[in-house]
């Protein structure tokens, strides 16, 4: 967290403050979003319908998607998603709304990584089967997925 100088009275104030605590003048925060949001937008993220604007509710925790990724295919990514889902909830109800939003973005990222790596694996696998790379490889083998 960095300090900025108030344009009105010159006091050192938090960059997250919406108004200067010493003189009450509004800061530029409402016009320019804080740094954190810029970096998140750089990671090309479509506007999620699940990101609620309702102040009563935490941001999307990605719990359903994380569970699906875990029990359908890609355990490590799904587990990271579930852990982040719990962080979204705990931070939100502890009053740390920015932290909850960060955890929400993290959860979404890992869920998507899990989903797309599973998809890529399946695609490459099918390609190799079609090319005959596994001829005889699985013989006498009971396999799972």
């Amino acid at each position, binding site marked *: 967290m960095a300090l900025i100088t108030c344009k009105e009275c010159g006091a050192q104030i938090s960059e997250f403050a919406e108004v200067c605590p010493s003189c009450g003048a509004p800061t530029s925060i409402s016009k320019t979003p804080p740094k954190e949001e810029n970096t998140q937008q750089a990671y090309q993220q479509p506007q999620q319908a*699940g990101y609620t604007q309702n102040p*009563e509710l935490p941001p999307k925790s990605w719990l359903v998607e994380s569970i699906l990724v875990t*029990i*359908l295919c890609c*355990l490590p990514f799904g587990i990271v998603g579930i852990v982040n889902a*719990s962080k979204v*909830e705990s931070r939100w109800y502890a009053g740390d709304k920015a932290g909850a939003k960060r955890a929400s973005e993290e959860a979404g990222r890992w869920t998507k990584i899990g989903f797309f790596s599973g998809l890529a694996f*399946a695609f490459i696998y099918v390609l190799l089967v079609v090319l005959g790379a*596994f001829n005889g490889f699985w013989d006498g083998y009971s396999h799972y*997925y």
Partner: protein
Amino acid sequence: MKKWVIAIVVLAALAILYFTYNPAESELFPKCPFYALTGLKCPGCGSQRAIHYLFNGNIRGAFLVHPLLVLAIPYLLLAVYFEYMGGKSKYPLIRKRLFGVKACIIIFVIVLAYWILRNIFGW
């Protein structure tokens, strides 16, 4: 809107594929790399066969290859209602109870326990 059309077409194609072919009998379905390397099942093993059995109305068959997936379906449907169909604004307290921190921790423990137990008991 275009994205949705593509998603629905892909999902429908996958549904027909998994309805028609049994992943246990066809070479074309990807195998679990974790199982191939270690000989142990992961918490996702059996999902393709379970989906095939579910599409064919064979709940027992699905339960035998992937019990957790079958048991999770009612909870997941409820979660979809709460997340995407307005349930969370209507019943925020129930949402917190069912999908809050405690729920996440319980799910985490269940997944790890399932991982260990299914390798002991051969689920």
